[in-house]
Structures are given as C-alpha cells and as structure tokens.
C-alpha cells in the first residue's frame, strides 16, 4: 500500500488532474474508456436538453421509419423518436448504475471493515453468510425480490446495491485484513486510539484505491443487470425508455419490420459497459496492481 503521500500532497483537484494525465499516458485505452463514460454521463445529465423529441411523444403517422435526418436513429412502432428514447434511457441507466454502485460501496465497506478489522466470530458469521449469498445468481435474487416489492427504479437500485455490496465486501475485507497488521495501525493502537478512530483515520484512507476500482466496475455491472431485468419485463416499467425494455415487450415483434430498432439500445449498452470496464481495468492497474483479476 503506497499510503498517503505522492499525488495526495497536492490539492485534491490538482491531484486528480495529474492522475488522469498519467492514466492518459500509460493506459490510452483506459483513458478512452473514461472519456466515453464521461460522455454518456453528460448525455444522461442533459438528456432533456439534448433529446430532439419527448421520450413518449408518439406520432403514428411516422411509425417504423428508418434512420433519416429528422430521426437519426429512426422511429419505433408508436412513432417515437429512437434517438430521444436512447438519450433518456442513458439517463435512467446512469442513475441506476451510479446509485446502485454508491450504495454497494457503502455496504461493502461496512461489512468488509466489520469482518476484516474485528475478525473472530463476527468475521466467521459474516463470511458464511456471504458464502451463502453468493450461491444465488444476481439476476435470480433480483427477480425474486422485485416479484415481492414490485418493479421501479428505486427498488432496483437498492437491491442491486445490496447484491454487489455483499459480494464486494470480500474484496474490502481482504484489503482491511492486510492493513490491520500494518505498522502504522499498530502504532495508533499502542497510542490508545479507539477502533473508530483507527478505521476512519488509518484504514479507510488506505483502502480508497480499492473502493474507487470497486465502485467503477460495479457501475458497469449494475447497468448491465438493470438492462437484463428490463428486458425480462421486470425493470423500470414502460413507457419509461430503458435500453433493455426497448428490445422487449410489445415492441419486440416490430424489430422484424424495423431491424434498426434493435441496434441503438444494444450498441449503447455495449459501448458504455465496455468503456467502464477498460477504464476500471486501467484504474486498477495504476491504483492497486494487487487487485488484478479480482471482480
């Protein structure tokens, strides 16, 4: 663990800039991923401004039109502009992805620190629970919970956060375990520092690299899983413009008449997840080489 120092000695803003320049130089593909991801984030944030039409503005006279100047991505079976729907879909995906990943990181920290720092019986119990939890596929757990609480963006973000949070606690635990035995933690403890102080001042700052990588990769995973759920008809209910939902439901039969409808949502999904993955890989290589091949 490099610990504080190096870039952290600069002001936080300047440190971030310096770090990203280093990323651009040594990992061009990762930097490309970061830029693409940022572009999608901005598209999501300003979707209402960027979208030429409303997400659910129907015009039955313009049903199933191929790509044209007025409708670059074409229109669907209700005459809705696909470009607008894809843009607003980006907003939905980004919201779910970011909030689920943020919640997941919080849960991972809570469980991972409890398990790794305190160890003993608590660790044993938590780890057996995580073992059991990880037996069940994410998608299945999600389907089951959604079948009880009903579909909706908030529920999906919370459940996804729980899912990835519990699974990710393993990685945090590993990091905390090795830190716990470090000299500077030992020193703090011998000076009489309490557990809370040690965790906040000495453990958390040092596992930041792990958390940043964990957060990034979870954004991609959450976006992909939400899309799968929407595809199965259990995601954010229509007419919300989800990328997964655009490929399923009543619109699915019309894909044969307007094959272009199948392209944009899937391509966006692939591109954004690809971008997050390569960016996350590059971050991992630069921030914490030990995490290679994990998660």
């Amino acid at each position, binding site marked *: 663990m490099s610990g504080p120092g190096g870039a952290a000695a600069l002001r936080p803003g300047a440190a971030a800039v310096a770090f990203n320049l280093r990323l651009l130089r040594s990992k061009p593909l990762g930097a490309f991923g970061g830029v693409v991801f940022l572009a999608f984030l901005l598209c999501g944030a300003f979707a209402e401004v960027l979208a030429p039409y409303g997400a659910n503005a129907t015009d039955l006279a313009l049903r199933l039109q191929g790509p044209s100047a007025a409708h670059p991505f074409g229109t669907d079976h209700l005459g809705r502009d696909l470009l607008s729907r894809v843009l607003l879909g980006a907003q939905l995906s980004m919201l779910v992805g970011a909030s689920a990943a943020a919640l997941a990181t919080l849960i991972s920290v809570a469980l991972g620190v409890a398990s790794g720092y305190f160890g003993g019986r608590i660790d044993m119990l938590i780890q*057996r629970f995580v073992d059991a939890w990880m*037996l069940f596929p994410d998608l*299945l757990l999600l*389907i089951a919970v959604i*079948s009880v609480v009903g579909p909706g963006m908030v529920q999906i973000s919370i459940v996804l956060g729980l899912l990835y949070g519990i699974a990710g606690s393993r990685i945090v635990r590993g990091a905390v375990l090795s830190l716990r035995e470090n000299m500077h933690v030992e020193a703090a403890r011998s000076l009489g520092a309490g557990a809370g102080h040690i965790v906040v001042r000495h453990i958390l700052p040092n596992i930041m690299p792990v958390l940043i990588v964990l957060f990034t990769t979870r954004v991609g995973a959450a976006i*992909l899983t939400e899309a799968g759920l929407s595809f199965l008809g259990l995601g954010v209910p229509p007419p919300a413009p989800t990328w997964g939902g655009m490929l399923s439901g009543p619109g699915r039969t019309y894909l044969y008449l307007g094959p272009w409808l199948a392209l944009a949502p899937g391509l966006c999904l692939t591109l954004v997840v690809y971008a997050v993955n390569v960016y996350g890989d590059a971050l991992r290589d630069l921030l914490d080489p030990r995490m290679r*091949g994990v998660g």
Partner: protein
Amino acid sequence: MQAFIVRRLLALAPTLIFASLIVFVSMRLIPGDVIDLMLAQNDVSGGQDRAAIEAALGLDQPLYAQYFRWLGAALQGDLGRSLWRNTPVVEQLAETLPITFELGLLALVVALSVALPVGVHSAMRQDSLGDYAARSFSLLMLAMPSFWLGTLVMVFPSVWWRWSPPLEYTPFFEHPLRNLAHMIVPAALLGLSLSAVTMRMVRTTMLEVLRQDYIRTARAKGLSETLVVVRHALRNGLIPVVTLIGLQAPLLIGGAVILEQIFVVPGMGLLLLEAVFQRDYPVISGVFLVVGVGVLLINFLVDLSYGWLDPKVRHQ
C-alpha cells in the same frame, strides 16, 4: 483422498444452513397484501381463502417452527405445491432442471473449447496480433449483453435470409438432433460470454506458468512445445481456471434465465419467470433452493478437482 472429501463436505454445512435461511426469509418477505393479490389474481376456484393460503405457506405458525417445518419437508423432497397449477413443485423442478442442466453443460463445452485454445495461444504469442485480437474480443464479449446478442441472432437472419433459429423444444431422448439444433444457439451465446472471462484467466495463468523453471527444464530436455504445454504447463495452469468456472456457475444460471426466455427453452429459468409473473411463491423458493444447492455442489466438485489436479492440496 477420502478424508479430504469428508473435510470438504463438512465445511459445506454452515453455508448450506445460511442458504436455506436466505431462501426461507425471502419467502417470509411476502407482505400480507400479496396474499390478497394472489387471491385476486389466481382466482383459486377451489374456494381457497386467505386462511387456507396462509396455512399452505405455513404463515400461521411462529417463525422458528415454520423454518424447521419447511426445512424438514424440503429434506424429504417436499417443496409444497404450485399455487397456480396445483402440482407438486418437485415435479415441476424435475421436469425443468435437466433442460437447464443440458443448456449449461453445452454452454460450458462451448466456452472451454473457445477459451482453452485461444487463451493458450494468446499466452504463447504474447503481444502478437492474435493475442491482441483475442483480448479485444474478450473485452467486447464481457460488455455485450446476451439478451442483445440473442435478439440480433433472432432478428437479422430472419430479415436478411428469411431464416431464424428453431424455437420448438424437443426432448433430447425423443430426437437428439432436433433437440441439439434448438439448444445449440442459446448454448453458444451463453458459452461465448462465459468464454470471455475464462479466456482472460487461461491467458494470465499460462503466462505465469510458462515462465517457471520447470518449463525451461522440460524444454531443455528437448520435449516438443506441444508436450511442454499440454503435459506440463496446462495442468498447473488449469487450477485457477477451474476455480473461475465454479465462481461463474451462478452467472451461467442467471444467463440461462434470459436465453431460455428468448429461445423458448422450457427450463428452470422459464419456470421461474412464469412463477414470478404469477406470484407463485412456492415455485420461486423451490427454484432458489435447487439453484443454491446446485451451485454449492458445483463448488464442492471444484474443490475436489483441486485434489486431483494438485496433490499438495489433499494433504493440507
């Protein structure tokens, strides 16, 4: 080896208990109004009322008693009856599980027959054009959702060539060829997404193993490169790959749910989806139990295979 197997089996017990608790609690999460919904939706003409459904779900007893009753029944192979079809859940599972198992097995075969040769080749010719192409492909497959690939496979051949993959299920023992013709497309898609991760793992571990001293010794003895790779390197390189496959088992099952839906494969995934839309909770929890135990068994087999692949493990 026997002591090794027994030790590993005992280690499973706590996980299994937690898993059964998770399934049980998720059943208990069903809020009261859902029972009303079930009554309204399923229109149980047999005159089942609220109390009858509560009794059927065992909701009229204290929690711990419910858990043990449920666990005891489950251990004897009784997972309750479907609220929708009124047939035993175990019967439905017995019908659908082999189908999903076949899909998963085919997918695994596809994944390994892509990942092993490509991963080994990538490692032997590190940073060559082929290595670069393989890595790009695997990154792309990791990002591409299987439901989109499945949709493309359904839509575009039909638009361009008026051909689409067969969607009619035939039991394997009735007509093996027709069965495979139907299953191979979803299995290939599932296998390809699994191969992406596996290929990366094969490449990484082979790169590590190929740098070891004993590989240099094998080469110095004058063994052919094929023998060095197959007999010496691959066997050690396989251990992390086997672990990975165990870890990927839940993902494989999750992917099967989506592909079964697209290609109308009447497996456990389709059963689950149907049950979810009909709020058929005994079926949902039955599927969960089978999946949990199944994944646990796969991981147990993975553990055992260490003992076989790496004799050191047996004596730890």
